[in-house]
Every structure is written in C-alpha cells, then in structure tokens.
C-alpha cells in the first residue's frame, strides 16, 4: 500500500466515525407478543431526525399543487389518522374522491396499502395521493423541486441524511419513518392482555370478546385486528361509484368487490366505516354483518352462513370493540402537528 492510499484510508475512517454519530438511531420497538413487522428496517434504519423530517412533511401542505392539502387533511390524528365525518374523502379544489381514507396505524405490519392493495410498499404509498388529481394534484418531481428551494427543508434533509441533498428516495423514506412510529398498542384490550395491574374487562366486554373471537376474528385477526387480506364482506354495490375494489389491481374477476380487511383498533373514533364510508355508526356495521350481507360469487366464505346475534349480544360485542380505543395513541404529542 502506498503512503497516499494509507492517508486516504485514515481520512475515510475519520469520516465514517463522524457519519456514524451524525444521526441518533432509535430502535423500532415491537409490542410484546406481536408478530415480526413486514417492513424491512435494514433498508431504512430509524433515526430521530428522519422521523422528525417525516413528521414535518406529513403536516405540510407544500406537498399539494396549491399548498392547501397536507397528508393530515385526510389523516387526522384524533380520529386514528382518517378523515372524520366524510364518507368519501375530499382533496384539492374541493374535489371528492371515491373512497374513505384509511386509518394509519401499525403500518410496519402491513404488506400492502390502499383499500385495494394497489401499493406494495409503505415507502411508495405517498406517491399515490401526491400525484392524484383529486387528492393533492401535484407531480412528485415538482414536490422535490419545491422542497429544494426551501431553506427549512434543505437543513432538515441535511440533518437526516447527511449531505446528500433532497431526493425522492429520502423524502419517501423519511415519511415512512414518521408513519412507522404511529403504533397503537395501548388500548384497554392490550392492557388486559398484558395482565396489567387493576385492569380487567367488564363482564359485558368479556362476553363481547368471546363473541368477537367466534364471529369476527377470522378476518380481524389479533393483535393487529386484520389479516391483511382482501375480502368481499357482502356490501351491496354503490351504483354511484361502481367500485370493484381489488379487481381494479389484479384484473381478476375472482377479486371483484374485495377490499382490504381494515384494522378495528380505535374504531370508536375512525367513523364512518367501510371503503366508501357508508356506515356512520358501529351499530350499523354490526347490523350489516347480522342481517345485511348480500350474497355473490366472491363473498367471503366465512360470511356465507349468517352471523346470528341477538340485541344483547350486539351490545356486548360493541362494548368489547370500544376497548380497542387507545387514547395515548390518539393524543400522543409526538404524532401531532409539529409546533415550534
């Protein structure tokens, strides 16, 4: 080895030491008893600066064409990051979409995104609303261009990704990191299962839990309360929308009317329900499953036999579902609008 190459090697080592201390690594913590996450953290290691950058981006309307719509316009923290009070979510210029915005929780475990699974990776999800004419109406390359003109973002990206500038890759990875921190695992249900001191289901909730396990858990699998599959849950087609769900992506008639099984966590606050927000109240949802199922060739097999629940059982089930509310998550200041 020549003296000059040794010198370069020493410089390189010093540089590496500086870089390895530049960001604060924060490990992703998996709640006790949960499965391994699907998200590959080795490709996007968590760091506090990246999470903070992602949070700034999440709440910034600069992502939309006319700076009116941010991610949080349709994903509000207090409603488990969905669009409260609107059956169909609306975006730029008051345009109305065709679906109810999904909640954002426990995304590290989700193998696909959107109601029809059109997006295959959390990193890539944000591209859809940014580029959609009815949502943010922007062009992703232009978003990056706008951020490159902003002193605030030049500095935030530099802190998060060292000196490599603002790129689409970094934008998407930072946004993912913030979304990955949106973990809801501290509802009463979780506390009961962890056998925390002085926490127990009421008699009604316990009965409801047992009904849930018998009739609902096949699709709304614990602990995430979804099996991440696509199912036709027997909703009659809304002819004003003619939304065929998963078939839009796969072009396979066997996927007609199938939509992603949503998580039930925090459902007390995430109304309205279903892909098109057609039900405002939990009672309507329960009634759908007990007496509203419309049969069809792609109907989920578990729903072929009607679920029979009397009035009292329906109330018990609802009582259990309300134990999935996680106030700590809904009001966690680390997830809210960044005031500083």
């Amino acid at each position, binding site marked *: 080895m020549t003296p000059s190459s040794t010198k370069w090697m020493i410089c390189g080592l010093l540089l590496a030491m500086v870089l390895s201390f530049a960001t604060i690594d924060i490990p992703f913590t998996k709640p006790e008893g949960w499965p391994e996450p699907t998200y590959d953290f080795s490709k996007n290691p968590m760091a506090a600066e990246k999470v903070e950058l992602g949070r700034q981006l999440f709440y910034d309307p600069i992502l939309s064409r006319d700076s009116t719509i941010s991610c949080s316009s349709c994903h509000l923290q207090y409603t488990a990051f969905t669009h409260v009070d609107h059956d169909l979510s609306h975006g730029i210029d008051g345009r109305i979409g065709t679906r109810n915005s999904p909640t954002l929780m426990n995304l590290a475990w989700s193998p696909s995104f959107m109601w029809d699974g059109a997006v295959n*990776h959390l*990193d890539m999800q944000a591209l859809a609303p940014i580029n959609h004419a009815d949502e943010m109406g922007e062009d992703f*390359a232009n978003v990056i261009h706008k951020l490159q003109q902003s002193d605030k973002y030049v500095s935030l990206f530099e802190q998060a990704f060292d000196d490599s500038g603002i790129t689409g890759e970094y934008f998407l990875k930072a946004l993912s990191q913030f979304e990955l921190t949106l973990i809801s695992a501290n509802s009463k249900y979780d506390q009961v299962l962890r056998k925390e001191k002085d926490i127990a289901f009421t008699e009604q909730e316990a009965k409801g839990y047992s009904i849930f396990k018998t009739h609902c858990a096949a699709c709304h699998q614990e602990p995430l309360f979804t099996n991440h599959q696509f199912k036709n849950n027997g909703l009659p087609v809304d002819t004003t929308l003619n939304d065929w769900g998963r078939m839009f992506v796969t072009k396979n008639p066997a996927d007609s009317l199938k939509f992603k099984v949503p998580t039930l966590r925090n459902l007390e606050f995430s109304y309205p329900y279903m892909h098109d927000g057609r039900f405002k109240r939990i009672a309507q949802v329960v009634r759908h499953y007990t007496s509203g199922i419309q049969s069809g060739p792609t109907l989920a097999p578990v729903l072929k036999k009607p679920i029979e629940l009397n009035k009292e059982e329906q109330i018990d089930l609802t009582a259990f579902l309300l134990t999935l509310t996680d106030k700590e998550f809904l009001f966690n200041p680390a997830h809210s609008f960044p005031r500083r």
Partner: protein
Amino acid sequence: MKKLVLLFIYLICSQLSINAQNKPLTINFVPSWAGQPIDIPSSQFDEKNKDSIQIESLRYYLSNIQLVKKNKVVWSEQNSYHLIDSESADSQILKLAIPKKIKYTTLRFQLGIDSTTNVSGAMGGDLDPTKGMFWSWNTGYINFKLEGSNQRCPTRKNQYQFHLGGYAYPNASIQQVELKVVPSADMVVGVNLDQFFDQINLQEQNSTMTPGPETQHLIQIAKEIFNVK
C-alpha cells in the same frame, strides 16, 4: 461501528479492484430509423403507411448487464440499473469497467426492472421515483416508455403513449435481451424504432398504460428492436 467496518471493507475492495486492472467498456445506445441514427424528438417517414411518425420521447430501464461466453456469465455489473433517456445524451452512454483479460461473445441485459426491486420500497439514483418512470396508482416501475403522435391515432392530438410495465404474475413484463457482440472498447447498440412501429397498428394500438397482456405483447416487440451491427 457497522458503518466503520463497511467502509473498511469498501476501501480494501476498491484497492483490490484497482489492482485487478480493469479496462473501460463503453456501450452507446443509439435510437435509429431505417438504419440511420436519429435525435429524439424526431419526425420520421413511415414507408408502409406513407405518413410521418413523431417521436417525442423514448425512455427505458436496462438492468443486470452481463457479458456471456458459451452461455456462461463471465462478468456482471453490480447494482446494475440504468435509465436510458433519449433526451439526455449522457444517459445513453454506459461506461463500464470490465476485467482486462475477459473474453465474451454475448451482451446480455434485462429490459426493465426485476420484481424484487419493484417491491423493495424507495430507491435512489436512476430508480428514484422522481424520474417519472414509476406508477403511483398501482406500484411499479415503467420498464419502457415511448411517446409521440401520428395522424392515424384516433386519440386527443393524435398522441400515442406506450408505458409498458408490470412486475407481478401474470403480468410481468421484464424482458431479457441477448446480443451477439465482438469484444471492443466501444460498442454501439442500435434501437430500431421503425421495427417497433412496423409491427403494430397505431390506429388500434396507441395507448397502453397498465400492466396486462397488451403490455406483454408490446414489450416483446420492444425487446427485439435492440441490435448490434
């Protein structure tokens, strides 16, 4: 600490590769029409239909570049992903470094991006989604994009748009291209666009922007337009 070790390994490897004595190999991808190189955007006369075809842009991904001899891979480029864009002369010239004593008879590459990369999240460089070669409504890279116009297209402004992509079964569209070559420091690969238009009917085929059988048919035509004189 991990970064430190990786850097150490990288430095040692880069030292080794300098010592291994590489030589440059330049591959120039030249769009052509009837055997003549063309600059895109371009207007070309279509002999068969006696009209002109406007070519506005041509962009495609090449990946996993390999040199092959007797069906054995003798060299393959690491992290091999290239966006070739007719509007950027630099992007059409690939500068590779291959071992000096290597012998090969075939240049092999994939037209498009493999399925693993398609499901691996955000990527940088030529794979950055800001490059406009990524579908946001149905995740995946666009492998081959050809746009322009012709009076036979019954579309708005007579435009044709071929955005060919799709990675998942049964709509995978990535194609392998193999070209017989004579080893040389400078290779020229022609991209014969007249050959593409010869095999399609613009009146009927002019807008393909979703994965599916039509895309697969078109990209099989596209993979044949690469040739070495």
